[in-house]
């Protein structure tokens, strides 16, 4: 009977799927890492550091997409502001990295980051205190987005802000943050943001080893997040979440405090996004208020939609695929890549309403049926 549960609409991914996903991820990651570190650059199998950083970036985006998918695909909370958590996580990490520069900045000030010297700040603001400690910075990286998600979620879900109202509010949130971070008075480097990082935990950020390690760490975290999310979504909690998506009022009438569930999920998702942001920054080398831009968040939603929302691996696939397409298009057809990308979005939404994952599953199901694999559920 309980195997029957796994047949439920939203939870089609079989047990083997998780293992497969994690397996594929790890094998690719390790192969790429090894190919970068062990093979000489001349070797045709050598994976360049460029590719490694690129892959690292994709994986960060995948994690972010996962975060969005969890709230949108499963709970129907369309967040158009998830990049706020991503960027906050990124800023947390950026602050830590800034403090690591120490007196190697251009002004040689051991305490103040360059941009503060530049704008005549005489001491480091209180909210930069302690950010030179890695552990503290990591707490901040996760805590600030989580607190923001909690406060925002608590306010919004408690007052039953739903649907597009919620979406637009999340957008307003990230937009407001963007404007705020653009302000130089905020002490986060204004438009230029935080950049010119030197090292992390004493490892030189420019070295291939560090890059590869960051890449591997990202992959590990993504795998972990994936397994964790899969566990959540397959638990009863996951089903309740889907129930809330489909009929919130019904869920309330059978006794679920839907607002708590939503807040919980929102905070969980914000943590994933924040972690993605924190890993993103040392790999791309800059964090700037542009990351808060509402359009970025919309793009993340598009990745998820392209991949297939409501399936975890769909989100991951979507993020990687769209970003890969972007990388290719901007290089091979710089003038026309927006056409291609725009057309892709339109095409996918119209013709693959369930995204790539949904499409594959349909085909797979049809294939199974044809092959006579009819597995009637027995209970």
């Amino acid at each position, binding site marked *: 009977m309980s195997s029957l549960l796994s047949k439920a609409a939203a939870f089609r991914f079989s047990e083997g799927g998780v293992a497969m996903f994690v397996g594929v991820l790890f094998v690719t990651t390790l192969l790429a890492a090894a190919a970068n570190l062990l093979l000489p650059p001349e070797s045709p199998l050598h994976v360049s550091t460029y590719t490694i950083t690129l892959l690292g970036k994709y994986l960060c985006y995948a994690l972010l997409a996962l975060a969005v998918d969890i709230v949108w695909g499963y709970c129907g909370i369309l967040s158009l502001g998830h990049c706020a958590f991503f960027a906050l996580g990124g800023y947390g990490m950026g602050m830590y990295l800034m403090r690591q520069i120490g007196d190697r900045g251009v002004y040689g000030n051991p305490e103040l980051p360059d941009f503060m010297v530049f704008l005549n700040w005489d001491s480091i603001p209180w909210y930069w205190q302690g950010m030179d400690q890695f552990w503290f910075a990591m707490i901040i990286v996760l805590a600030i987005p989580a607190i923001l998600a909690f406060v925002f979620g608590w306010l919004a879900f408690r007052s039953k802000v739903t649907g597009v109202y919620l979406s637009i*509010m999340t957008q307003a949130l990230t937009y*407001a943050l963007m404007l705020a971070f653009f302000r130089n008075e905020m002490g986060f480097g204004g438009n230029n943001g935080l950049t010119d990082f030197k090292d992390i935990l004493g490892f030189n950020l420019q070295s291939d080893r560090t890059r590869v390690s960051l890449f591997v760490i990202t992959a590990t975290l993504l795998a972990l997040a994936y397994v964790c999310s899969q566990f959540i979504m397959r638990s009863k909690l996951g089903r309740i979440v889907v129930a809330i998506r489909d009929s919130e009022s019904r869920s309330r009438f059978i006794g679920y405090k839907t607002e708590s569930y939503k807040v919980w999920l929102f905070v969980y998702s914000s943590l994933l996004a924040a972690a993605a942001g924190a890993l993103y920054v040392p790999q791309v080398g800059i964090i700037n208020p542009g990351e808060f831009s509402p359009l970025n968040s919309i793009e993340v939603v*598009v990745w998820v939609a392209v991949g297939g929302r409501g399936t975890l691996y769909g989100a991951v696939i979507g993020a990687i695929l769209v970003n890969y397409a972007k990388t290719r298009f901007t290089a091979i057809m710089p003038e026309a890549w*927006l*056409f291609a990308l*725009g057309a892709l979005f339109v095409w996918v939404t119209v013709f693959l309403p369930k995204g790539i994952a949904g499409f594959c599953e349909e085909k797979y199901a049809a294939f199974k049926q044809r092959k006579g694999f009819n597995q009637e559920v027995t209970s």
Partner: protein
Amino acid sequence: MRVSTFVFTFILGILVQFNIANSAMAQSQQIFPSTITSSEQGLLQQLTTAKLKQTSTLVEQLSGNDNIALLPLYQTLLEGKLYYVKATGQLLHSEKTSSGERLNHDVFTAAAVTGLDKKSIKKIRVNNSLRKQLRTVIAKATLLGSDVNLRLSAATAILNDVNNGNIALIKQAKTSETNSDIIDLLDVAIAIHTLDNEIDETTLIATIDSLSGSVQPAARNQLVAVRDNQDKAQYNEAVQNAAAAALQTIDKEIEFYAFIEKLFFGLSLGSVLLLAAIGLAITFGVMGVINMAHGEMIMLGAYTTYVIQLIMPNFIEYSLWFAVPAAFLVSASVGVLIQKTVIRHLHGRPLETLLATFGISLILQQTVRTIFSPLNRQVVSPEWMSGSLAINPVFSLTYNRLYIIAFALLVFMALLFILKKTNLGLHVRAVSQNRDMAKSMGIKTERVDAMTFGLGSGVAGVAGVALSQLTNVGPNLGQSYIIDSFMVVVFGGVGNLLGTLIAAFSLGVTNKFLEPLTGAVLANILVLIFIILFIQKRPKGLFPQKGRAAE
């Protein structure tokens, strides 16, 4: 479609007609004839060889005699149209027509001079200080003239530069002046002069009192000078107290106007928000399509304005009248196209319309970039949209904003009428609430969808025409309004047109009252936070849809 082609050709036809008429008008412009003394003639010849810095001394010398006959010269120089023939030194009024050819006239005789090419004439350069000087010279010369408007601007100009040299002229002008506005100005000028030169306490105090109602900056500055002066003995305590009291009255008045002004700014910002959002209130609010390409519809409208102006370069003054319907048609047709090709497939999947339209917005932007280049395009403001309606020296209403407020309200009314009073409106709402049932009641849902989306997009296009008068016409135009538009619609309450109106205006006014206190950036942030918090109180916006069905 056939209708739109027809309308287009029709408009084009009219444009061509007017083009011809307009260039004919330009040719008939007159330049006054005159006679000039020989000493002036000499100075004039020096003009052609003088460096920019010397020009100013030459003008000073020229204007010494107050020769009205030189007025056309000053005027031409001021407009930057004074040229001379390199070979002969003849001074020309030279002007380029929109078709690119140059029309040359002798400055003084107004006789057409032909047979000159670009290389054989040279411009006499002017700069800001020279222009200022010329204006004063012209003011002096026109203060006694017959044209009321010229006299008015002369009086205004002279107010900033009252001195012993021109006080006699001012007083003379006052005796012959009939226009009360000008008399007021001249009075202020005389008072300023009196304050500066008089030593008698009672006269000073009386003059100060006479100025206490005036919000002229020059008068105020003079009073400040009196109040704060330490050196001049005649400004004793009583005089300074009187000045301080007068300043207080003036400042109170100024404050009042500042308040009204802020309100006006707020309303005008609100009207821009309203225009930007109102199309969305239909496509998103009524139809439920989360139309991320809405901004691009606005952009298309703005580009249409640009194209219309390209088509009718001599007819800029009236171009907006054509731009409005044209922009409506262009954006509406694009909207219908989008609806028929994409949105139609997304019934019942509102969130997905967000994704598809996001893709469309990318495509549209890049299309515009490809066709018109990524550079901004130049849209000219017609004369009647420029300048301001001066209520008094510290308070004036800019015309473009006034028109845009009126226009926004007009568009709003029209839409309200369509949605509330016509069958289309009824059908739109029915379809958006229950498509199947609407079909069963004989509503042609496909057509209604297309028309509604077209309407919303068309209105966005119309908004684009208005925005082209305020801001850049470039590929990014749409993006800068999309977030605000959504914010307005949601704040007002989705599906409620009146809510959109009130939301737009209240956000505009709030913003403008915050801005002086916090600066523009923080004001923006605060407004956003305010909206976020407000939605907690009213999760469905200002005017939520009430009743059972809304749950």
